[in-house]
């Protein structure tokens, strides 16, 4: 259906592009096509990862093992995590970047269009390998998405090779995408668009791309070590050969913590675009937002060991990482305060993108609070590896990253499709998601405090009630996401015609082109004053 609409623009605006059908999508180097591919792919992955989560929640619905075996349960949690991180959230952001960055900076396309095509098309293979491992003799990876050695090496179920290969491909894809974003932003800005005139959305992707370039190769390195430890007799993480399993965690989290910010900085960019639009007021403190984003990115390199307080670090190490982690609350706080000040004395309306943005700010802040609590080493000993942590990172990733993606999707859907989305359905999507997501994740805080460890397929009886409600929230949240699918399909098929600038308060170059955005935009750069 997307094909239909977009081929229409194609014939209107671009007579020399004649490829149709599957070939068009395979060979496309157009940033809008590739953006569309990324977005659809990430949504399919989101539903896949969500389906795994549904099985997990069914198993945890009541005490006892009813549906799956413990080993399969571990495979589910592992693949759920990997798919959501690398298959849903990250490609969705890359999709938004592909669609919006060139239009926001007045560029005709991404700087490296062929690379762009490749970086998308290797992704499905990575996930085919990962998901395919479910059907192999070994089973899927069962060592958690954090794949701590030696559980993932000496004691792996034989899926390590598939896992490593899949992660390598995902990593290469991300790196290529990031290089493209950096080159595009540095070289293709319209004349007059200085760095400090770029929309904050562009800034956050710029910084995120640098983070990706810095840490994805480290991930590639650590999975390579896991591979050689498992199959080629090296002993990076094997104490018997002079290695150290804790070193795995240090290298992994050196990647892992910046990775967390890779998944949240673009979200900051999105809501910093939507909130000013619907508050009809300029973003408060633009430059402090830029500096706050940059300092969060820099701090992310020196806090990794806060994931490892229980591994037996010396006191000074624990103190150092505790202080650094607490420090992150400062720039993050600045951001929240700036959004608050942007809303203050605005002239607000509450279209669906704004609803998701406000929910983002509030719920992400709750995730930030639990993050601050986790930063304190003495209490982290109690929270670590419990459902409190599960609640924390789902608040920042689901009501954080995912909600921001929804905000962005609703915000730009008129630009992408040329139609307004169905307002009533989209509000249903929002309110159902908002209520169910809190029923799903808020009680997890209590479970964690009461002592329920994460990654267990069965639990003590005292945890039964809360788990039941969490599962019900989970099923409701899962179903609510299907409303979004309906909204998008309806929006592509038709609906009220969208004007070039459907939002009264919107600013930015993307609104100067017609809706739907023509196949080629800004072939001659716009003038910025």
């Amino acid at each position, binding site marked *: 259906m997307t094909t239909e609409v977009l081929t229409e623009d194609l014939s209107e605006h671009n007579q020399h592009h004649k490829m149709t059908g599957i070939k068009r999508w395979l060979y496309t180097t157009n940033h809008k096509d590739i953006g569309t591919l990324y977005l659809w792919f990430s949504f399919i992955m989101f539903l896949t990862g969500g389906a795994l989560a549904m099985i997990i929640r069914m198993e945890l619905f009541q005490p006892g093992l009813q549906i799956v075996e413990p080993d399969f349960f571990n495979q589910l949690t592992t693949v759920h995590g990997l798919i959501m991180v690398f298959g849903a959230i990250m490609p969705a952001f890359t999709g938004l970047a592909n669609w919006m960055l060139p239009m926001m900076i007045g560029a005709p396309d991404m700087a490296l269009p062929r690379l762009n095509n490749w970086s998308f098309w290797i992704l499905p293979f990575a996930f085919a390998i990962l998901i395919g491992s479910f059907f192999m003799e070994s089973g899927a990876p069962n060592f958690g998405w954090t794949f701590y050695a030696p559980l993932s090496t000496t004691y792996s179920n034989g899926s390590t090779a598939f896992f490593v290969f899949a992660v390598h491909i995902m990593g290469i894809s991300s790196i290529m995408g990031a290089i493209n974003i950096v080159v595009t932003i540095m*070289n293709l800005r319209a004349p007059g668009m200085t760095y400090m005139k770029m929309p904050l959305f562009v800034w956050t992707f710029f910084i995120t791309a640098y983070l990706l370039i810095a840490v994805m*190769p480290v991930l590639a390195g650590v999975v390579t070590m896991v591979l050689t430890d498992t199959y080629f007799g090296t002993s990076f993480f094997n104490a018997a050969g002079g290695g150290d399993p804790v070193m795995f965690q240090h290298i992994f989290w050196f990647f892992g913590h910046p990775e967390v910010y890779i998944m949240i900085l673009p979200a900051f960019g999105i809501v910093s675009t939507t909130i000013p639009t619907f508050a009809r007021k300029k973003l408060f403190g633009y430059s402090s937002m830029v500096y706050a984003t940059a300092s969060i990115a820099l701090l992310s390199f020196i806090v990794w060991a806060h994931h490892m307080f229980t591994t037996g670090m010396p006191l000074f190490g624990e103190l150092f990482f505790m202080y650094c982690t607490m420090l992150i609350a400062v720039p993050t706080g600045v951001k929240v305060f700036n959004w608050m000040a942007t809303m203050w004395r605005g002239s607000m309306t509450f279209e669906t993108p704004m609803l998701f943005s406000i929910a983002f700010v509030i719920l992400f802040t709750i995730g930030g609070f639990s993050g601050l609590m986790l930063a304190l080493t003495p209490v982290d000993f109690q929270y670590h590896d419990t459902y409190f942590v599960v609640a924390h990172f789902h608040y920042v990733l689901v009501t954080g990253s995912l909600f921001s993606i929804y905000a962005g999707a609703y915000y730009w859907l008129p630009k992408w499709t040329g139609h307004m989305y169905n307002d009533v359905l989209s509000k249903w999507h929002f309110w159902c998601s908002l209520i169910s997501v809190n029923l799903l994740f808020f009680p997890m805080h209590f479970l964690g405090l009461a002592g329920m460890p994460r990654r267990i397929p069965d639990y003590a009886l005292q945890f039964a009630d809360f788990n039941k409600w969490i599962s019900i929230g989970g099923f409701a949240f899962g179903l609510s996401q299907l409303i979004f699918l309906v909204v998008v399909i309806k929006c592509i098929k038709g609906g009220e015609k969208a004007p070039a600038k459907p939002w009264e308060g919107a600013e930015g170059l993307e609104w100067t082109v017609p809706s739907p955005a023509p196949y080629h935009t800004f072939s001659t750069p716009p003038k910025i004053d």
Partner: protein
Amino acid sequence: MTNQQKTSVVQAPNSKKLVRKLILTVIAMFGFGFALVPLYDVFCDITGLNGKTNESAATYQASGIDSSRMIRVQFISRNAQNIPWRFEPMIREVSVHPGERKVIKFYAKNQSTTNMTAQAVPSVSPGIAAAYFQKIECFCFNQQPLKAQEDVEMALQFYVDPELPTDITTLTLSYTLYDVTQAAGS
């Protein structure tokens, strides 16, 4: 700012340069991932992060014995999964003055019916003390082959560096015994 304006006008040649730089960064960061392995060891040596002790013989170079204090040194042992050996310290703990040399023995017996090779891996707690625990001679420097049912007494000669922080009064040395028969055979 004027510079940047210029760069955005002239596009094509800069992209190549920039891409090359970025790819070099990627390669460098991949290398950095591996460089973290030796860096981690250096870091651990300095900070005693993981309680790893010296892996080769130290020469005795203490500047004398600090007889003003006594350090309890405890010995524990553990067989990693699957290794059918008896392996234990012949004395549970000793008290030493910092700087004083001491020899203690471990007993090992291969209780299986095949010839095996094992490697003992030392670890000191508190980790910070690892840098002050100096082994002059240790069975853990080498692999230990034992024939089926063979036994051996293995020596460990050590001293505690007099520089050891004064708040540490007890040191625990743990040995985990690993089966390395396959690795040693190949």
